[in-house]
């Protein structure tokens, strides 16, 4: 079976410090990978998605970047955190959408609560 691991669960970082959140998927290959941010327990904003190694699409301009150095590893980074980067970050994966497989759902990690102080 497939599993997704996301760590750490909680993180408190000072303003101006770097950030690295890691997400790995097991039990599948060549997945689509996603980073979402959820502010104040409400809607999810898609930050990045990746269809393959080193293939990253950015959805919104921001202080964050993403990398996919390996097929099942997705990293969210920042060189200098801002207060506005605080939030709940969720990693997800899905199978490739193609034809009838376009109805494939995404599976989520447990999230990282980031507080920038």
């Amino acid at each position, binding site marked *: 079976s497939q599993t997704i691991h996301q760590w750490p669960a909680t993180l408190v970082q000072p303003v101006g410090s770097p950030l690295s959140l890691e997400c790995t998927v097991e039990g599948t290959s060549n997945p689509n990978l996603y980073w979402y941010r959820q502010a104040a327990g*409400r*809607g999810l904003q898609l930050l990045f998605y990746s269809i393959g190694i080193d293939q990253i699409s950015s959805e919104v301009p921001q202080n964050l970047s993403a990398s996919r150095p390996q097929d099942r590893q997705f990293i969210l980074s920042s060189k200098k955190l801002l207060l506005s980067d605080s939030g709940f970050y*969720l990693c*997800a994966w899905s199978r490739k*959408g193609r034809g009838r497989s*376009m109805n494939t759902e995404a*599976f*989520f990690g447990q999230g990282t*609560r980031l507080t920038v102080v």
Partner: protein
Amino acid sequence: AQSVAQPEDQVNVAEGNPLTVKCTYSVSGNPYLFWYVQYPNRGLQFLLKYITGDNLVKGSYGFEAEFNKSQTSFHLKKPSALVSDSALYFCAARVGYSSASKIIFGSGTRLSIRP
């Protein structure tokens, strides 16, 4: 722009009563739609998805959703609510083409079931 809308921030229902959480969508091509549930400080759990041709979709925990193409809606329903159903619910849609498609979410609806 393609989008998913959840018009209600909060839905309050008495235990044992039927519940409906509303969702409308605006996507090009055939819609591929999903419902997720989120409990506090946790990731999202998949509930159900729409598969072309079957307008009434059944999912986990007794939930179902009705796809209505003419109204571009995909409302989540349950015949008899439980207190444990209290959570944040998200409607989502897959947009884009083939392997490069991505999933976008509505703003979420907080469901509160009172005993």
